[in-house]
């Protein structure tokens, strides 16, 4: 200490003797550093790790679904020009449940398991899965490896036994001998279907032939999607069809794009937007606090200049002080942010079902954190420090008296003077509130920004939830699918006789592909036959019209198809390949439903006529008397059991509530992220307001002393400061509400762009009330500590206060 020049000693003393203020300023800056580290760090880690894990899984360029193929066909595909590797697999859907079940037990209510079999798991070169438990590849006959996301909805461990019902209805016991991670499998939370892996030998136990029904390949080089599509078409025609293999489906995903890519992009964009906003918030906090400190130091600046300090010397002292705050803030905010980021990233990765190998924040995030902690405060402090140290000596020295010399002139003050009958303490606090207008403005901007962001976050949440409602264009309580088409009349009769069922609707649903002008094929599109006037569908038309009675080869597409296939405009006619035959349809409309995959709706008579005129159905929807989801699920199980008893095996059943939950789970990731971000921003607001209030107390110590001297009680001092805090918060709330509307619209626009999914805008009106309550509570809490300090001020100290 004694080696330091006196002016640097002053800097050190000011920092250490105003511990509470130092703590507040450091916290204000640290919260910004923290927010940036969590948000940007989380984003950086997620993007990096997701990309690494996804790339490491070597996703297939093209996959064919075929009727039957053997190893020779696979080898022929692999030899085809432009193909690097090809592998054959067999996948099938079975129903399963936990534990050993009696042979006689009904499988109604069992879950769906997508079983994947392939030879030589250990030598696979694409769509790789990694073992996360004990055990080793390949699973032995009778053994099953489960994809780990199943444990988000259930609880399976190595050694468990599951009962499986084959498509033919036979019961088989499989033992779980491994838990694996497959980034290319849909997480069980999103599709209500678990994924399992078996060896080819196990297929025999499941009554399955030992040949493949899927061929996956990785192309040479890095083809574009169009190039990959052309390759796929060539292989289909020249290799597969030439060998008599029937190709049911060709899938060419956008190269390098995971099925969660849209949601992922949305999350990452939100994080980026919020990161920028928290940066702005902490910038405002720093300006506010530094300005307050300069206001408090103004007389000391005057003294230093009067005894020979040059403006630049004095300025340097304060900038060094701010830099020290910054260093402390980085030391606090960065590690805590890294820990919180670790937790946050781990949580997010779990939701998205991928593993994080390294939680180290990217270097640019660390650099950003340091910049926010050091550069932002210094930049923010520069103007107030410069103004504070340029002030002329007389003015600085004159500022020592009671503050508020300018009171009585401003518009606000005159307006306040007009309001009569206010209780004295309230009038006094209003006067205090408006007294320090500059800082008030900054505090207001900070809090307003926080309010606007929090309310926008709530609006995005409610918009997402509204979208989930919107997406659901069906009006059913439960539905089930059949592996093989069933007679409509028989199924509808059996189902409608079950007690509690009020309405049933059977519908045919067939996979089709659209052939584009350039000869390449679309992703599979489900064509569903519906009665144009059925009350089971409640379509929301975004373009054109819904099906009309008398329509024949008409089709209404959903938004997912319209997005992928720009050729399919309303009024165009298009060829869809249904059950292996090209059929002409006229596109008459587009409905807004998303998140159910590409779907087209056609008149049921027409679908019947092109699929053999038998009136067969593959899907059954029903409505129940009860609106209770549990009761609906129970009724659905009864229907299932009744159908099975009559020889109609159900492949998959779900209630409307289940379906909504899955959709909500996908979008729920966003909702969760938004909630976490909202909490961080609210914390910024709390710390900011506490800081401002505390500085106000420090600054009005003399006034408090005078009030005490003339008889103000503890209670009225509390009342003054709490009223002040609440007034500030209410004003910020009001302007926050105004700003949040356009901000929500902008955020939602960004999300729509990122997800390619039309979102329903639903401003969170209820959020306004919630945040009003929260902001009032925050204001009261943030003012209590300063108010306590104020009530502790003794008259003697106050008058002597420097």
């Amino acid at each position, binding site marked *: 200490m004694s080696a330091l020049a006196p002016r640097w000693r002053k800097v050190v003393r000011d920092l250490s003797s105003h511990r509470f203020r130092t703590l507040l300023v450091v916290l204000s800056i640290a919260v910004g550093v923290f927010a940036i580290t969590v948000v940007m760090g989380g984003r950086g880690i997620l993007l990096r790790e997701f990309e690494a894990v996804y790339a490491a899984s070597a996703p297939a360029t093209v996959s064919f679904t075929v009727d039957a193929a053997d190893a020779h066909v696979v080898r022929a595909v692999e030899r085809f020009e432009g193909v690097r590797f090809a592998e054959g697999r067999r996948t099938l859907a079975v129903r399963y449940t936990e534990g050993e079940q009696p042979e006689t037990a009904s499988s109604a209510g069992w879950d769906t398991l997508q079983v994947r079999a392939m030879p030589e798991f250990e030598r696979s070169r694409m769509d790789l899965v990694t073992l996360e438990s004990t055990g080793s590849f390949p699973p032995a006959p009778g053994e099953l490896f489960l994809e780990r996301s199943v444990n988000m909805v259930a609880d399976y461990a190595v050694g468990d036994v599951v009962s499986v019902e084959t498509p033919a209805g036979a019961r088989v016991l499989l033992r779980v001998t491994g838990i694996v991670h497959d980034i290319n499998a849909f997480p069980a939370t999103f599709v209500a279907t678990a994924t399992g892996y078996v060896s080819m030998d196990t297929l025999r136990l499941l009554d399955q032939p030992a040949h493949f029904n899927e061929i996956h390949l990785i192309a040479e080089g890095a083809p574009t999607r169009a190039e990959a599509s052309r390759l796929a078409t060539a292989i289909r025609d020249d290799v597969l069809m030439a060998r008599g293999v029937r190709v049911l489906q060709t899938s060419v995903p956008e190269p390098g794009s995971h099925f969660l890519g849209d949601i992922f992009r949305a999350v990452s964009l939100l994080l980026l937007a919020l990161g920028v906003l928290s940066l702005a918030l902490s910038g405002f906090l720093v300006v506010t606090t530094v300005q307050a400190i300069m206001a408090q130091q103004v007389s000391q600046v005057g003294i230093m200049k009067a*005894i020979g300090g040059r403006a630049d010397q004095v300025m340097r002292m304060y900038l060094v002080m701010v830099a020290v705050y910054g260093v402390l803030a980085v030391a606090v905010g960065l590690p805590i942010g890294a820990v919180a980021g670790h937790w946050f990233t781990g949580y997010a990765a779990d939701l998205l079902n991928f593993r994080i190998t390294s939680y180290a924040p990217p270097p640019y995030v660390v650099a950003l954190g340091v910049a926010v902690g050091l550069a932002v405060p210094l930049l923010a402090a520069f103007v107030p420090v410069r103004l504070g140290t340029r002030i002329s000596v007389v003015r600085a020295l004159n500022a020592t008296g009671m503050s508020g010399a300018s009171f009585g002139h401003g518009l606000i003050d005159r307006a306040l003077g007009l309001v009569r009958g206010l209780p004295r303490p309230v009038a006094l606090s209003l006067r205090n509130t408006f007294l320090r207008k500059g800082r008030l403005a900054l505090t207001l901007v900070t809090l307003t920004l926080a309010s606007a962001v929090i309310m926008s976050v709530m609006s995005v949440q409610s918009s997402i939830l509204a979208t989930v409602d919107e997406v659901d264009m069906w009006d059913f309580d439960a539905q089930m699918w059949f592996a093989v088409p069933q007679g409509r009349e028989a199924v509808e009769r059996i189902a409608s006789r079950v007690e509690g069922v009020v309405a049933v609707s059977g519908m045919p649903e067939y996979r089709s592909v659209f052939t584009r002008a350039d000869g390449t094929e679309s992703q599979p599109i489900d064509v569903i036959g519906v009665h144009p006037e059925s009350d089971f569908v409640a379509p929301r038309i975004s373009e054109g019209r819904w099906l009309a009675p008398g329509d024949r080869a008409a089709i209404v597409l959903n938004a997912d198809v319209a997005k992928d296939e720009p050729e399919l405009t309303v009024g165009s006619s298009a060829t869809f390949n249904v059950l292996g035959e090209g059929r002409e349809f006229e596109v008459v409309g587009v409905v807004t439903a998303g998140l159910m995959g590409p779907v087209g709706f056609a008149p049921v008579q027409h679908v019947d006529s092109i699929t053999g005129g038998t009136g067969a159905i593959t899907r059954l929807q029903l409505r129940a008397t009860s609106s209770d989801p549990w009761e609906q699920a129970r009724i659905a199980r009864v229907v299932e059991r009744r159908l099975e008893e009559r020889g109609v095996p159900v492949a998959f059943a779900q209630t409307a509530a289940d379906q909504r939950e899955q959709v909500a789970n996908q979008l729920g990731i966003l909702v969760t992220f938004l909630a976490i971000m909202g909490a961080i921003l609210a914390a910024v607001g709390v710390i900011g307001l506490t800081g401002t209030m505390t500085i106000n107390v420090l600054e009005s110590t003399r006034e408090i002393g005078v009030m005490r001297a003339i008889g103000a009680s503890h209670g009225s001092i509390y009342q003054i400061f709490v009223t002040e805090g609440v007034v500030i918060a209410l004003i910020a709330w009001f302007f926050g509400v105004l700003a949040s509307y356009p901000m929500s619209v902008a955020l939602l626009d960004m999300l729509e762009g990122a997800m390619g999914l039309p979102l329903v805008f639903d401003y969170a009106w209820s959020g306004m009330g919630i945040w009003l309550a929260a902001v009032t509570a925050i204001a009261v809490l943030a003012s209590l500590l300063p108010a306590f300090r104020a009530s502790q001020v003794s008259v003697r100290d106050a008058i002597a206060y420097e």
Partner: protein
Amino acid sequence: MPNERQTGSSALVSLRDVVKVYDTGEVPFTALRHVDLDVRSGEFVGLIGKSGSGKTTLINMITGIDRPTAGEVVVGDTPVHALNENQLAMWRGRTIGVVFQFFQLLPTLTVIENVMLPMDFCAMYSPAERPERAMHLLEQVELADQAHKLPSALSGGQQQRAAIARALANDPPILAADEPTGNLDSKTADAVFHLFEELVEAHKTIIMVTHDTDLATRVRRSLVVSDGEITDETIHRPRAERTGL
């Protein structure tokens, strides 16, 4: 005893036709009206007058704490009115020690650190010399034993003596004090005044604003300020003759 800085009869401090107008409020207020003043080296000048007469404004013109609206302020060879803020700060730090009514010690620095601060700002004396010099000054004002206390632990008189030690830090030829005894009881005020007398004896030039008419009669030359003008001037007997010292 002649001061080295004094050349012939020319003044050390010289104000020519100084006008100060404050333009606060609707009507500009003229606080100094064409003031002329010469102070020679080694003089002990008292400025007296009613509250609001313009004493502080006048002394602020001399210290460069405030600027005249019109007129010239020359101290030594320096045209104070023409200096910019930075030049002023450096010039003031070396040339004029300022003493305030409310002491104005920096609250987070100890007494000796407060005294060393002007040396630090003006880069006077080597860092190693500074503590020694500060201690010497504190001895002069009889505060050596309080050197490492914070100002808040000192009485008003002690704080003012510390402030005087600080004003002397860079050994300035001039001391400007605005009601330095205004906040002190008469006994303490007397001690501080005595300190000033010793400093004049040590060839400092002192310009002091005071309320205290008794103290005013003890300075060599007292000037009465009223309504922004110097209206009267009295030369008292030299202190030595009066006190017999």
